[in-house]
């Protein structure tokens, strides 16, 4: 991994709100993280935690209105993307930043051939002849592992299987050799075997195209496979961020711990009690306090605690991050014995 001092993508205090009939939904409320060159960063969280909105805010793919980026900066290669004009943004989308979405069944327009849809992405950024664009599209289809690409290019999406469609979507995202690929739950809608293939493919492509990946998922198993670093989100806030080892071996936030306990293979599969807090009227203090077994009075007042740097690159937003040492009692209920680590810090 090349870890340089200037990250490719740097999100600072991003706030994306949606104005709805029921009030303002603070889908993303002060999110910060960096993505270095060639690195894969996973954003993890339950559905509704704001991870998709975060990823779509980067190139402003969220519907505006009702959505609005009310604050924060998104630096891509040193430039604040939130300040760009519509035209510049369009240049960025599909050019230097590619997107892959969750549902391959819906991500392709049923009335165009896949070739047309790939060429569309190429033509949006390059001035190629039709034949050249077609050649490039075929090469892309080959790159993403579609057999007989030269003939399949004239097929319509409904003639492809789900996994193959997702490969086509990835081909579209790679059409202009982006520096950053944003993949929003690209394997959630797929079978487990296909999922593994797509993850392999993404890893291979990352080396081949030398790009960074922001990978959004709710599946920690996938995170373990693919991530270099992890951002754990909950209710529009970052709960914990760190390297994949930090998160899996040394997690410091109760929410992360709870997520880890939901992993299949753990001896006691325990769902996290409760539900996400109201998005229009979030609770004071830590967003997670309602469902947190360690929560104390401190957790219920003020704002979400700032990220405390436990060690280099490992931050946690919890007032009790040092709970093992400051004498706070461990919860009384029986936790999973296989849990690798806990509050011993």
């Amino acid at each position, binding site marked *: 991994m090349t870890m340089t001092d200037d990250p490719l993508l740097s999100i600072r205090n991003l706030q994306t709100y949606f104005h709805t009939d029921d009030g303002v939904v603070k889908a993303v409320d002060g999110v910060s993280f960096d993505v270095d060159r060639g690195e894969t960063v996973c954003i993890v969280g339950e559905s509704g935690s704001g991870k998709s909105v975060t990823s779509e805010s980067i190139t402003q*793919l969220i519907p505006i209105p009702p959505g609005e980026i009310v604050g924060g900066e998104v630096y891509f290669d040193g430039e604040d993307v939130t300040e760009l004009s519509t035209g510049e943004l369009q240049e960025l989308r599909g050019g230097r930043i590619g997107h892959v*979405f969750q549902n391959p069944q*819906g991500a392709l327009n*049923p009335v165009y051939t896949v070739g047309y849809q790939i060429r*569309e*992405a190429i033509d*949006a950024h390059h001035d190629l002849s039709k034949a050249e664009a077609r050649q490039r599209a075929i090469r892309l289809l080959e790159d993403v592992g579609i057999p007989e690409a030269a003939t399949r290019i004239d097929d319509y999406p409904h003639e492809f299987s789900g996994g193959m469609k997702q490969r086509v979507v990835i081909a579209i995202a790679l059409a202009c050799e982006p520096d950053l690929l944003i993949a929003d739950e690209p394997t959630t809608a797929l079978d487990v075997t296909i999922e593994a293939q797509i993850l392999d493919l993404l890893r291979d492509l990352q080396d081949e195209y030398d790009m960074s990946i922001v990978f959004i998922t709710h599946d920690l198993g996938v995170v373990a496979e693919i991530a270099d670093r992890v951002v754990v989100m909950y209710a529009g806030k970052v709960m914990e961020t760190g390297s994949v080892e930090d998160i899996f071996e040394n997690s410091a936030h109760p929410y992360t711990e709870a997520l880890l306990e939901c992993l299949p293979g753990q001896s006691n599969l325990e769902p996290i009690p409760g539900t996400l807090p109201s998005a229009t009227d979030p609770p004071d203090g830590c967003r997670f306090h309602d469902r947190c077994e360690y929560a104390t009075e401190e957790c219920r007042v003020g704002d979400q605690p700032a990220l405390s740097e436990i060690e280099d690159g490992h931050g946690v937003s919890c007032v009790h991050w040092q709970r093992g040492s400051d004498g706070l009692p461990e919860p009384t209920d029986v936790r999973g014995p296989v849990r690798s680590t806990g509050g011993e810090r």
Partner: protein
Amino acid sequence: MKAYIAKRIAWTFFATWVTLTITFLLLDFSPISAAGAEFVDQQVQQGMDADEARELYQEQLGHGDTAWERYTNFMVGLATFDWGWSSMYSQPVVDVIANSWIYSFQYVFPATVLSVILGFAIGLYSATHQYTKEDYAATLFAFTGISLPNFWFAIMLILIFATMLGWLPTYYSTDVALLSLENAKQLILPVIVLSTAAIASEMRYARAESLEYVHAEFVKTARAKGLSENQVTIRHIFRPAMVPLITILVGDILGLLFAGGYVIEVIFQIPGLGLVSYEAIIQQDTPLVLATVLIPVFIAIIGNLVQDICYTILDPRIDFGDR
């Protein structure tokens, strides 16, 4: 796909046959058919020879002694373009039609083009700008347009622009050349009346269908490729919405335009098919009534066929095994 189109054509013939048979049955069981004797009397009173009148009547209705004979006469007559004799015009019905269609076409065609373009454009804009002021205004216009009784709307426009302001003529005049500014001027009101309802209807459909796609995943994909908003709207919202929209073009809009045209011709006295039909009904000129009613039916049947073929071209997913 070829087999599918062949099937559709066969179905079209079958549908035509059923339609004509129903028409015949309606005609044969009607009091008008039974009133043949009365008709002959009428003609005699108007100074026609009795035998001649009877012959004329038989010719008109494809009359025969048995129902089967009448039926075959009727069907063969229609198929061979021998559509009978118009007593009102003292001409073969086919000639009357040939002389009058252009008067209908000259304003129905521009109104159709206008309504399709405006209707789809407004509907698309409305869908991509859902819940904005413009969207609400467009929806209000649509409701108004589909609710305005076109005959009353026409009269109100005449009241304002002809009677009160005197800018436009009250009635259509056949004295001016078809391709003249004068003629265009006297067609302004008919075109407005005819297209208002059609625009309203089309934009409602266009909006509803486009809305299906505004939030589609593939629209997001298209945006993520770096396409401009216009490209996204046209290629990825409008183009897929076209598929269902084709259906309403033939099914609803054709009917709307024909029915609207009928009333408009009566109000503005445009001597097209509608006015001919209207006068034929008043004068009880049955062969002419039949012809002027069947023409829209034929156009609708052919329109349906064209629509289905368009469908196969526009939607690659269509299942040709159906039907």
